[in-house]
């Protein structure tokens, strides 16, 4: 799990491996190391660092492992998770069908 310390703290007692990052650069470094190690099946990333990691996350999105899950931090969701789903649907369908469904 990569994120800011405040969000990660409660997960400490759940036996997860936590990698607190204080800025984008650090998050990038940690993410690169984790994906290279190939020891993880699921990586949670708080949305705060998504813009910085977007390129890397998108690169591994269509590989079987690892699964990257965006989680909101304590300040609330920024909608990146849903935007991601939307982008995936767009790729599959060739167009944005979620948007169309809403307009009906």
């Amino acid at each position: 799990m990569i994120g800011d310390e405040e969000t990660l703290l409660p997960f400490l007692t759940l036996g997860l491996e936590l990698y607190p990052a204080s800025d984008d650069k650090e998050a990038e470094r940690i993410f690169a190391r984790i994906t290279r190690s190939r020891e993880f099946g699921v990586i949670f990333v708080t949305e705060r660092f998504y813009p910085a990691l977007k390129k890397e996350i998108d690169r591994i999105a269509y590989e079987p492992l690892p699964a990257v899950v965006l989680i909101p931090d304590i300040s609330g969701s920024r909608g990146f998770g849903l935007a991601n789903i939307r982008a995936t649907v767009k790729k599959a369908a060739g167009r944005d069908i979620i948007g169309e469904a809403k307009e009906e």
Partner: protein
Amino acid sequence: MKLAVNPNRMNNLRLRRRLVVAKRGHKLLKDKQDELMRQFMELIDTVKGERNRVEKRLISALKRFSIARSTLSREELYELFALPGVTTTLSVRQKQVLNLKIPSFELTLKGDIISYSFLRTTAEFDLALLELKELLEELVKLAEIEKKMQLFADEIDKTRRRVNALEYKLIPDIEETIKFITMKLEEVERGNLTRLMRVKDMLEEKRKE
């Protein structure tokens, strides 16, 4: 665009066989695409619902925890959690859906989450942690279906490209080339025939002389 082959019978025959194969492949791929799409549609709804639900719960759980721990300093908190009571292991297995290998995650939590001193913590603190523990399982489930969705999307994209390549490029190309070769062969045949007739005429004229 017709293919670059010599217009002869051999190639005509070969191309006609290729056309049959291409058409069968196209049909199969089209079926696969439809099936993928059908499953994908179902998946999107689940993923969207789950994501919304889990996100909301996670935020509220984090807020609860934040309030519950407000009585503790950062150092005290680290001290409390110094020995995690839970060991978490994640096992990954693969499921086969169509030709896709989909990872499936299973989370096992061992031990009691409340492994710290009750002296300085409140009941809310315990509850917030228990809620987070439940959420962790849901987060892993979310990871699984989101990954599945991404893999599906990728496969659908690939299949669509293949279907389109066959439908709009390869099959029309082969058909055009077959037509071209057939016409060319007919033309050669006609040319042959007129030449024979002409030779026959010439021979007959010679005999009369």
